């Protein structure tokens, strides 16, 4: 019988850590898209993930639509919820300040969570894995096929967004809003529309994160807040607004969590990453890949 060595154990924790980290990275990317265009931190970002998971369960498991179709419909529905969030909670605010905007997104997240509880109740839901649950063994490390889907989707999202922001007119217009909304308006960009688009886009990415996460960790109405906190942490750790930073921060938080829970006390799982996050912030107030000069120009 093969004994489990420390190295394989460590590798196992690394694999699970990177998978969870990829989810955090997607949430962090969602934070950044909205932040870059509006300088708003959307604390309801985690609710998109929760909605993505639960709506996918409803459409795929309860209604029986095929996986790919259900996937597309779910992204569409969650994107709509992102648009509603902007129109109902953010746009009507007349005197935005960091505090009112943070409070508004917190309020929205409570409303979304409450609505989800009414619809789905409090029990967790499972979703079939995208390509079965037969584990793959690699040198003593057990890999769920779904892990690969999660990491794969992170790669797809990262490449897709890079192309979108660098190669398309729409993406460039959004980047322009991020740099200077007034100048963007002057050259004829409809800033309001870009804000709306940023909410739609990050809701869609949240939905993808939720759908890929559910087969691994189940999903219930109450998961959004913690996912938002971890994703926000990842975005801050990497440096707000930076996409490579979001991926780096997300993977780091996932890894620290997994290693900490596996090798040290598991009860402190949620604390390790946050302690590291605080230490990093104290040493580098703008995060790892963030730029202090840039943050000075930001209003918030």
């Amino acid at each position, binding site marked *: 019988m093969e004994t489990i060595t420390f190295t394989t154990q460590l590798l196992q924790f690394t694999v699970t850590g990177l998978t969870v980290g990829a989810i955090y990275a997607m949430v962090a990317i969602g934070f950044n898209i909205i932040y870059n265009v509006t300088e708003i931190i959307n604390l309801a970002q985690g609710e998109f993930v929760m909605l993505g998971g639960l709506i996918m369960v409803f459409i795929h498991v309860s209604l029986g639509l095929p996986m790919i179709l259900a996937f597309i419909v779910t992204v569409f529905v969650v994107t709509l919820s992102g648009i509603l969030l902007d129109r109902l909670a953010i746009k009507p605010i007349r005197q935005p300040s960091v505090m009112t905007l943070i409070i508004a997104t917190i309020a929205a997240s*409570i409303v979304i969570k*409450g609505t989800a509880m009414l619809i789905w109740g409090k029990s967790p839901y499972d979703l079939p894995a995208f390509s079965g649950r037969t584990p793959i063994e690699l040198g003593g490390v057990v890999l769920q096929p779904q892990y690969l889907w999660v990491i794969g989707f992170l790669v797809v999202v990262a490449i897709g967004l890079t192309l979108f922001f660098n190669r398309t007119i729409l993406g460039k217009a959004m980047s322009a809003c991020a740099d200077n909304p007034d100048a963007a308006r002057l050259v004829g960009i409809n800033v309001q529309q870009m804000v709306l688009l940023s909410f739609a886009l990050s809701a869609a990415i949240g939905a993808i994160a939720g759908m890929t996460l559910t087969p691994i960790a189940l999903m219930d109405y109450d998961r959004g807040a913690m996912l938002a906190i971890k994703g926000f942490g990842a975005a801050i750790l990497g440096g707000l607004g930076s996409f490579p930073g979001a991926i780096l921060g997300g993977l780091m938080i996932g890894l620290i969590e997994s290693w900490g829970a596996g090798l040290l006390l598991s009860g402190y799982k949620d604390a390790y990453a946050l302690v590291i996050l605080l230490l990093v912030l104290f040493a580098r107030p703008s995060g790892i890949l963030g730029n202090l000069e840039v943050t000075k120009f930001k209003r918030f």
Partner: protein
Amino acid sequence: MLRIHKAPIVAGVLFILLFPWVTGRFPAIEHYPDLMVFAGIYCLITIGLSLLMGYAGQISLGHAAFYGIGAYASGILTTHFGINPWLCMLIGAVVATLVAVAVGAPSLRLRGHYLAMATLAFGIIVNIVFREEMEWTGGPDGMGGIPGLALFGYPLESVNQYYYLVWAIVAAAFFFTIRLIQSPTGRALRAIHVSEPAAGAMGVDISRYKVMVFAYSALLASLAGSLYAHYMMFINPSTFDTFFSIKLIIMMALGGAHSIWGAVVGAVLFAFLSFEWLHHFGELEILVYGSVLLLVTVFMPEGLAGIPAKILRRGRR
């Protein structure tokens, strides 16, 4: 905002003094003084927060941690070491203040969203410690057997006695905070709120003031926590979790973060909403919370405390 009107203060004090007597006449609301004890405890925290958020312009999403530090200092020191509750309250306040200085000094250099994240992370970490250090805190099940308070050798027994004690402390904090706002310190704080670079250029030591206010608000929150522990005689970690920090933000938004009156009104209103009125909604409660908060933020950004000013403005026209 510098001038404090006398009339509302007199009205407020009379209201607090007569409240138990009046509610005691009506069986349907005779339990209201009990709610007001909690309202008073919340007030202590929000008064500190209004100085931090409304005057110094710093956001905190982790004040439940200081509330918890006070409560657990009282709980642990009385049950494990048999120390006098008042001394525990003092020790808790000192610990909370020191922690606030230690966390605040590096945190408050952070701006806007970074500060929000730092306080959020701090609050979560402290709550996990409450949950995990079972030997001392009783873990998720909490700890009981915390003694009540005694005044001059007489133990406080009735709800009304706690009511008057808590509100006396709230009044003391209220007046001390008002003095603080009117002092040069208060002026410096408002200057920081308006523009940090300008305040700095005028010679205001920005970081020192920010840390001071943070520590002061932590001290008040810790006192509130101790009062809660001795009144309930039982504490558990979920009372001091991040959702409570969010609830504090709801209180500030309801009342209006820019006014110390707003802090008091928001806390009292919230206590009644959460313990009394929203219960009728059952499962829908959370939805009502969220909707109320959203409506207030969108349509009443100055909170309830902004209403008199609005009426005055309209009257002048």
